[in-house]
């Protein structure tokens, strides 16, 4: 038994002449929260579908819970998933919808009410699905994914449609599941969400992996920035010259000098500016967040 929940090697999916997913490689360790990021159409959902055996792959291979994705029957009983939003029968109630899936999967019917309570739908269990709001549908989808008490949870944009309170609840739920040993593989376009809850990150762009690893590795790979601004507008050029003269890449943007340097270099710059007769009105070390790093890597704005 390896310590990987998901391991993908050269996995590809081709539709006609179009490569939806092209030779991707990544690993997701057991018991972690792994964020799966990429712009629309980058191949996130296609990859998740391949991992769940919903669509065939045209190249490479993958392992989920140590079983090949060619044999999904071997691992799906331990996997919970919500792909491309919640999908249920509108004419059935929330509880009935879960009971259908519980019956199909051979899970105890008692779990239905427990899970509905857990996702905050306990009092709407007997309402028809078609009367649910988008956020309630999303919660029901998460409850359905939790039915098997999964070892691996795959969620595609689980916070879509949720209010800020709901987003926080889902975030806390995913974190607590991971803390209790469940591996969570979650995609989202809200990168700040993933930065908060994820241990690992897989970034896709145009069907290719642009980063796969620990979040800290990604942030470390990105050069930190110091933003400086003089008291006088004419000081900008002087600060720029100072910074470049000391071997740093710098540029002027929006009446500020952006210098690629670690935070501890700010003191050196402050001293050098003082010696040069420049009074700094602003000196801020900026740690790039995941979103900025993502845009930097994918080239998207």
């Amino acid at each position: 038994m390896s310590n990987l929940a998901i391991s993908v090697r050269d996995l590809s999916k081709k539709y006609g002449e179009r490569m939806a997913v092209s030779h991707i490689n990544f690993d997701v360790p057991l018991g972690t929260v792994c964020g799966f990021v990429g712009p629309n159409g980058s191949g996130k959902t296609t990859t998740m579908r391949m991992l769940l055996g919903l669509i065939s792959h045209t190249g490479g291979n993958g392992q989920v819970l140590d079983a090949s994705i060619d044999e999904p029957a071997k691992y799906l009983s331990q996997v919970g998933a919500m792909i491309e939003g919640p999908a249920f029968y509108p004419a059935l109630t929330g509880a009935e919808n879960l009971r259908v899936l519980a019956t199909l999967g051979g899970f105890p019917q008692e779990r239905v009410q427990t899970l509905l309570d857990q996702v905050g739908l306990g009092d709407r269990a007997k309402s028809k699905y078609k009367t649910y709001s988008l956020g309630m549908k999303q919660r029901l989808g998460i409850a359905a994914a939790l039915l098997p008490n999964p070892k691996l949870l795959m969620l595609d944009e689980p916070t879509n449609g949720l209010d800020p309170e709901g987003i926080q609840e889902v975030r806390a739920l995913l974190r607590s599941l991971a803390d209790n040993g469940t591996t969570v593989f979650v995609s989202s376009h809200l990168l700040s969400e993933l930065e908060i809850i994820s241990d690992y990150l897989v970034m896709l762009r145009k069907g290719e992996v642009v980063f796969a690893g620990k979040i800290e590795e990604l942030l470390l790979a990105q050069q930190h920035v110091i933003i400086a601004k003089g008291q006088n507008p004419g000081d900008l050029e002087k600060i720029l010259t100072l910074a470049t003269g000391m071997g740093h890449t710098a540029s002027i943007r929006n009446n500020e000098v952006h210098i690629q340097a670690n935070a501890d270099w700010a003191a050196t710059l402050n001293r050098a500016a003082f010696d040069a007769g420049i009074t700094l009105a602003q000196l801020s070390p900026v740690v790039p967040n995941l979103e900025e790093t993502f845009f930097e890597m994918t080239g998207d704005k």
Partner: protein
Amino acid sequence: MFRVVFAELRKLRRPTLVLGTLGAALFFSALITSFLFLLIDDPNGNGDRGRQIGREVLVLSSGSVTGFSSVGGLLGLIALCVFAAQTAQEYTYGTLRNLLVRQSGRLRILGGKLIANTIFAILMVLFSAVVSIAISVALAPGAKVSTDLWFTSDGWSSIIHTVINVFIAVFGFGVFGMALGILLRSPISSISVGVLWILIIENLLGAVKESALRWLPGSQLNTIAEGGSQTISYTHAMQVGGAYVIVISVIAAVLFSRRDVAN
């Protein structure tokens, strides 16, 4: 497989579907059977397509189910709609992916769905048989039709045979509906195509060339429900209809098991 059947039955037992289906079965059974007795002396006929079914036929041991056998084709249409809708909705709602994540054996899903829908169809056929026979018994005296032979051993044998034949026809129509649901992945499209073919296209083809009816699927299934007709024998209908059902089942199974679930 049993888990799939029970899960499907949970969906099928919702009141709107059960009452809607039984309501339609009640309506057609009552209508066709009532016409048989109420219009017995009408020169325009009392059977389908103006066919005259006289007292000499209705007094026979098979008289109690003469009306019911005529309802078979319409029950088949109801089954086609139910089977098609129950299958195609999994694609339109996107629920198929939930089912396949919980049960990855696609043929098991398909088989379970077919069995559950078939159980539903059996209930509909039995309900329709009871309604039709009850109406026949109620209207026979007024139409001066003797019911003396209806519940003899021959009469019961006729009832059982007719129920089985109608069920076979209904099952065949249902399989066609299910296949259309898989093929077209839309309840509206699959029901429209199925009903259009059975009610319009086959009748037009039959009007242009009557011998064509010997080879068309809907015609064979209707003939099975009636236990054979003057132009198509029961054996011929079973062979040709059975061949159609087997071929379309194989095509549907291959499509369902191999096609990517991308919605």
